[in-house]
C-alpha cells in the first residue's frame, strides 16, 4: 500500500511541480521567449495531471490485444483529452511566437515591461491623450486601473 501511495505521490509531484514551475516562469520572467517556454511547461504539467487521472495501477494500454480484458485497461478518455490538449498547446505556442516576432520588430525589445510601456505610449498617442497630462500627472489607469491591482492579485 505504501508503495502504491508513493508512486501516486511521485507522479502528482511531477505534474504539480511542472505547473508551478511553469507559472513561476510566466510571472517571473520578463523575457517574452522565456514566458512562452514557461507556458509550454505549465501546460505539460496539466496534461500529465489528466493522464494520471485515468491511470489504474498495473493497468494495460487501452488497445484490444488477446489476453487483455477491458477491466484491466486504463481509462482511455483522459488520453483522448490530452491528445487534444497537446495539439492545441502547440498551435497556441506557434501563434504566440509569431506575435513575438512581430512585436520585436515593432518595439525592438523582448522585455515584457518595456513592451508594455511602449505599447501604452502608443495607445495614448493614438488616442490623442498624451502630452497634455501624462508628464505631471499619471493617467488614471496607471494609478487605479486593474492593471496594478491585478498584478498585486496574481503575485
Amino acid at each position, binding site marked *: 500500500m505504501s508503495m502504491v501511495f508513493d508512486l501516486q505521490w511521485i507522479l502528482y*509531484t511531477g505534474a504539480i511541480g511542472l505547473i508551478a*514551475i511553469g507559472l513561476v516562469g510566466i510571472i517571473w520572467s520578463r523575457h517574452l521567449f522565456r514566458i512562452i517556454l514557461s507556458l509550454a511547461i505549465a501546460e505539460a504539467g496539466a496534461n500529465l495531471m489528466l493522464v494520471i487521472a485515468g491511470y489504474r495501477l498495473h493497468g494495460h494500454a487501452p488497445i484490444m490485444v488477446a489476453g487483455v480484458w477491458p477491466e484491466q485497461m486504463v481509462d482511455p478518455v483522459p488520453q483522448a483529452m490530452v491528445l487534444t490538449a497537446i495539439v492545441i498547446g502547440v498551435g497556441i505556442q506557434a501563434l504566440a511566437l509569431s506575435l513575438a516576432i512581430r512585436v520585436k520588430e515593432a518595439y525592438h525589445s523582448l522585455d515584457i515591461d518595456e513592451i508594455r510601456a511602449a505599447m501604452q505610449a502608443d495607445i495614448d498617442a493614438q488616442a490623442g491623450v498624451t502630452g497634455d497630462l501624462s508628464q505631471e500627472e499619471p493617467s488614471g489607469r496607471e494609478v487605479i486601473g486593474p492593471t496594478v491591482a491585478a498584478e498585486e492579485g496574481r503575485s
Partner: protein
Amino acid sequence: MIWITGLLVVVMLLAALAVIFFNNHVAAVAAASVVSLALSVLFLLLKAPDVAMTEAAVGAGLSSLILALALRRLGLTQTGAASATDEREKNR
C-alpha cells in the same frame, strides 16, 4: 517501476527549472525538449502509448523545431553575447 518513475520525474523537474534559469535561449529550448521527452516516457509508463507518441512527436520534435525557427527570427541564437534583457534578468 517506481524508481524509473521517480528518476524521470526528477529529471523532468530539473529540466523544467533549467528552462527558467538558463540564460542561454538555445539551452532553454533544449531543456524544454528534455522535459517533453521525459514526459513522453512517463506517458508510456502510464500506459498511454498514443499520448506518448504525440508528446514525443509534437512536444519534443515539432515544438522544438518551431521554437528553434522562432529563435532564429528573433535573433536570439547567438550564444555568446547576451542581450540587454538577459543582463537585466541576471542582475535581478
